[in-house]
């Protein structure tokens, strides 16, 4: 498979966005138009006059990606140019789950034929690791720092896949950059499904999560193996397939690899917090039947 994201872009070593974008393009092939919001991916791939995109690509604003994608689809239809061309949005969790929610909600409700890929690295990385609605419980970010009176982010992750499924999307899936075959397969299925489809790719960010840049895949796999990031497919709103876990690992293994959870192992009361995070993983496993 040819990579349509050219090398030489400014992504960090171990960059999760580069992996997510590359896998998405591998799934899409050349006959597509891609929209990205403001964010790491946009900044690192398009310093004018350079571009890493070997497919047509547009960046408009931070919060309007889905609307722009819907306009592209409408324009292609009106001009009789849609044919097999796929319209794909690729954005980060902040652009998707926080500031872009109105736009994505509208575009899905209108039923445009496009695929929205959310690269979920669980915070605003481009601006220096501030919390987003996708930041997990107790993660320390620059705007939800751990401190004498805080264990970090006080809220659990927003369940965006459920929100998108509730829009009547025919295909919603979760996957991870740590599982390239799974990611490519699901993005391809999303693209091939007519109507507005959504894929959320878990994307460990070495810079923001504070782990060694050689460990992106390892951390990503642990998120899945602990059930903190369950991988599943929803067809017409119903869970159709889940990735089962053999010998589910304790969340501690996942947390201890990352600087953003370091405080949980140092601070008094950290044990109780880790227990709460384990309960989140247990609830995921139970709800989705993840344990083999």
């Amino acid at each position: 498979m040819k990579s349509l994201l050219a090398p030489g872009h400014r992504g960090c070593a171990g960059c999760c966005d580069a992996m997510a974008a590359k896998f998405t393009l591998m799934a899409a092939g050349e006959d597509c138009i891609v929209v990205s919001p403001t964010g790491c991916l946009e900044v690192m791939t398009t310093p004018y006059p350079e571009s890493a995109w070997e497919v047509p690509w547009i960046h408009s604003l931070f919060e309007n990606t889905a609307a722009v994608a819907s306009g592209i689809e409408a324009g292609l239809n009106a001009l009789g140019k849609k044919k097999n061309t796929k319209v794909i949005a690729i954005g980060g969790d902040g652009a998707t789950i926080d500031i872009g929610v109105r736009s994505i909600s509208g575009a899905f409700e209108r039923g445009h034929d496009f695929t929205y890929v959310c690269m979920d690295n669980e915070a605003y990385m481009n601006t220096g690791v501030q919390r987003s609605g996708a930041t997990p419980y107790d993660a320390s970010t620059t705007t939800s720092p751990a401190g004498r009176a805080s264990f970090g982010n006080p809220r659990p992750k927003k369940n965006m896949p459920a929100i998108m499924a509730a829009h009547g999307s025919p295909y919603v899936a979760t996957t991870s950059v740590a599982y390239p075959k799974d990611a490519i397969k699901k993005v391809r299925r999303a693209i091939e499904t007519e109507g507005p489809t959504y894929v959320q790719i878990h994307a460990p960010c070495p810079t923001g999560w504070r782990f060694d840049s050689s460990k992106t895949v390892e951390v990503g796999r642990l998120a899945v193996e602990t059930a903190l990031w369950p991988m599943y497919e929803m067809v017409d709103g119903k869970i159709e397939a889940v990735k089962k876990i053999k010998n589910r690992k304790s969340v501690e293994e996942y947390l201890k690899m990352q600087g953003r959870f370091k405080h949980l192992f140092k601070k008094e009361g950290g044990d109780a917090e880790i227990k709460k995070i384990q309960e989140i993983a247990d609830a995921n496993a139970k709800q989705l039947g993840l344990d083999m």
Partner: protein
Amino acid sequence: MTAQEVDKKKMVVVEGSYAVAHSVKICKPNVISAYPITPQTHIVENLSQFIADGEMPDCEYHNVESEFSALSALVGASAVGARTYSATTSQGLELMHEVLFNVSGMRLPIVMTIINRAVSAPINIWNDHQDSISQRDTGWIQLYAEDTQEAADMTAQAHKIAEDKDVLLPVMICMDGYILSHVYEPVVLLEQDLVDEYLPGYAPVFVLDPKNPMTFGAFAAPSTYTEFRYLQEQAMGVALKKIEDAANKFNEIFGRYYGGLIDEYETEDAEIIIMAMGSIIGTIKDVIDARRSKGEKIGLLKVRSFRPFPVEATRKALKNAKVIVTLDKNISIGLNEGALCTETKACLHNTNIDAPVIGYTVGLGGRDIPIHTIENIIDQAKEVMSSGITVESQFTDLREDLI
């Protein structure tokens, strides 16, 4: 028969919003995306009916969830080469603010009708120009219509100007809320054959196309950013001529003309020249006719293009004036004057024209501007002519009982 006589035979009595919606249809946009807001609603309702009746078979019309997305969707549509249109007003236009810069920066020739309305707070649905004037620096061409016929005709002109390869800038067609959008008066509805002759199909050079991949909306560092703004400014300079050309060509084909960048009424020997934009022009002309019959040398300079601002044309029209009066349906709070006042003073500075400029803030939030208000302003201008300027800019017809 003269053009006017031909027009009279073709005229139908319709609402201003219908006349504009009809023009939109005849200009054959590929994508319309809009969100309803008073008093723009009649335009989008009429367009929706055209779509429902199959009268716009090649157009995709999308009712989106906000004005922000209305314009954002057109960014995508325009970037794949579609002719695009939307309409909004007031709060909706303010919500689009961020997208407005994005559209002009990417040089996407989107056309929008702005039904001018006051902005909140206090909330008010009636006419003034605060909404569009507040978008002055977003890089959009802004044209102001005097009546419904001009607003309808301007729609075709706007597409022609915007899509010109040497311009490639978005255009706002500004028309006064209710006063024009909801008034029924006789107009000639644009004819398809004439518009087809006037306005060729949109054939963009740069589009998003998998066969020839291009990157739109890249990020520009300090080493390149300035030149993008410079080129937008250059394009605005080109637009000065193209706006005139579009008006002249329209006159050639349709036999109707409202001025290019500006229009002048009785300015040749005028000692006092009143400057204004939009529907107030008609009232001023009536007052001037009455004053002229008494031998008073009053003239009118209608500003049709607020962006690009017609600096040269304004200087030329004002060169022999003794007093210049600007009427603004907007206010820059903290400067106590409207935008036309500020721009006019700025364009006369560093020239040999040293006539005093006196500014009046009028008609905010839909307050009526009766003939006697214009009469009072002219009387004050005469006072300035004889004894000099005392107040540079002021509110008009204030209700002292509320202050």
